[in-house]
């Protein structure tokens, strides 16, 4: 079997660009550390409250150091539990100052959900039995919608929240 000369050029060019793409992705992944979330940390879905991060009093936004925040969230059909404020009302918006580093930790006691903060790189699958984690720096101010982007049942499209980044 012989290859036509033009076909050789075409394939070398094509496979060459493929190698470049892979090198870029690999550089970003292993040198810069930008992997998709992959923590392989499990949790008992029947008893998520037993985990320190998902105790009812620990849900929602907490400042762990100067400019560093953790947000613990329980996703369940069809709601994101972002904790309660001082008056005992449920929180629907997470407010953080611009430039802060925020670690989102999410789990679910029921079915598979999505967790995406539209307009940012935060996009994770949330599965029963696993803890999903992503740390990001909120560089731009504005309002960002949290959407459930994996079908979780009849009220799937009513599952949302909001992140507000202020100056």
């Amino acid at each position, binding site marked *: 079997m012989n290859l036509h000369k*033009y076909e050789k050029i075409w394939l070398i060019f094509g*496979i060459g660009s493929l190698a470049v793409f892979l090198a870029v992705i690999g550089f970003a992944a292993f040198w810069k550390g930008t992997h998709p979330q992959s923590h392989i940390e499990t949790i008992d879905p029947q008893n998520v409250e037993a985990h320190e991060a998902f105790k009812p009093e620990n849900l929602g936004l907490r400042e762990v150091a100067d400019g560093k925040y953790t947000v613990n969230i329980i996703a369940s059909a069809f709601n994101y539990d972002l904790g309660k404020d001082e008056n005992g009302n449920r929180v629907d918006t997470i407010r953080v100052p611009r430039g802060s580093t925020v670690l989102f930790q999410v789990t679910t006691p029921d079915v598979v959900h999505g967790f995406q903060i539209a307009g940012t790189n935060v996009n994770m699958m949330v599965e029963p039995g696993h803890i999903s984690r992503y740390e990001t720096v909120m560089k731009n101010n504005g309002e960002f919608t949290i959407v459930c982007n994996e079908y979780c049942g009849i009220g799937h499209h009513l599952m949302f929240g909001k992140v507000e980044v202020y100056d």
Partner: protein
Amino acid sequence: MAFMYVTFTSLLVGGLMGLLQTFVRSGKYTLPFGIDYYTILTVHGVILGLVMTTFFIIGFQFSLMGKTVGLTDKQRKAAWWSFWIMLAGTIMASVMVLTGQASVLYTFYAPLRAHPVFYFGLALVIIGSWIAVFINFRQLYLWRKANKGQKSPLLAYMVTINMIMWVIASLGVAVSVLVLFIPWSLGYTATINVLLSRTLFWYFGHPLVYFWLLPAYMAWYAIIPKIIGGKILSDSLARLAFILLLLFSIPVGFHHQLTEPGIDATWKFIQVVLTFMVVIPTLMTAFSIFATFEATGRKKGYTTLFGWFRKLPWKDVRFLAPFIGMVAFIPGGAGGIINASHQMNALIHNTIWVTGHFHLTAAMTSVLTFFGITYWLVPHLTGRRLTPRLNKLGIIQSLTWTVGMLIMSTAMHIQGLLGGPRRSNFSEYAGGAQVDTWISYQMAQESADRFSSLPSS
């Protein structure tokens, strides 16, 4: 022909469901009689993704095998068994979906639970398709016994490769349905392994789209050259491309799970590399096809740089529809590389970008080629002729389909980049400017879909 009737009935039903969805998503309509959005979304996915494609492909492959290596009466009888078992399974699954007892979408991710009959129906469709697989293998085996030492016919070879791929891939979903889902839906097991069921599903789910693509490749490599009056560039290169696609199709499903919490990042990266390998046979195919076009034109005496291109049979729908499909595969394939790119996947994962992507690759590349094949195959099977008037109607149909899909899929890609989610009923979420931009793109999708689906139905 029986396979073709089911194909086009499901196209009608499935297309209608797609149209209804975009109506609902635009936010201007609500469904009557309390029918749920997710029920029609499940119908659209199952009917078009699993039923229409599988019936079309198996029917098409039977006719190719019949023509190239022959079909005995015994095999024909067995083929009817495969047809009826698949149809029974389809009806079982569809009834459950339509009565709202299986609104689990076509991916049926655990632990969403459907009625057990839905899973039994899926199992029957797979078993029926396996019968077809073994008939195809037997056809080629008998031919090779009768023609010792000869190379098997190209199309028979391609069908066999596609069927090997189908068996390897469907083992994953068969294990998942028989071992995980059926015992669990009947209550024999209390829990189900979510991560394992998803991995098994995608082990099947991505080779599945190559199972749709390879029949299109068969037409491009072996049928189109005949229609334009030329000859395939290289028989052995075509065979090599099919072998490579078979090998590379096995590990690709993993890129659907890049944002999964329970899988190690290094493994994800290894799978990204393996997924990218699929590009190589695809590049080979692109080269072969256009080289065939050029060689044919040159032989006919068109010597200028692009003369051969202008003189392709643009007015023949059997060429035009597949050709548009080929062109759509350029942005479609490029989008696929983005989807499989490790961390870049997080930008588009489960946004409506993905829906836009597979409407380019499946609904344009594969389905338009299937339209072209149909205009060629049905006259063959029924002994009728594609008259000039019908040819013109076919062209109008293919062009409206193209324009509609193009607008819809572009709007979906843009909305996806802005973060709009897929698989979601109309929602204003928390409101605000971000959500407003999503809604405007949803309206564009609605009008485009209305445009493309009606004439094609």
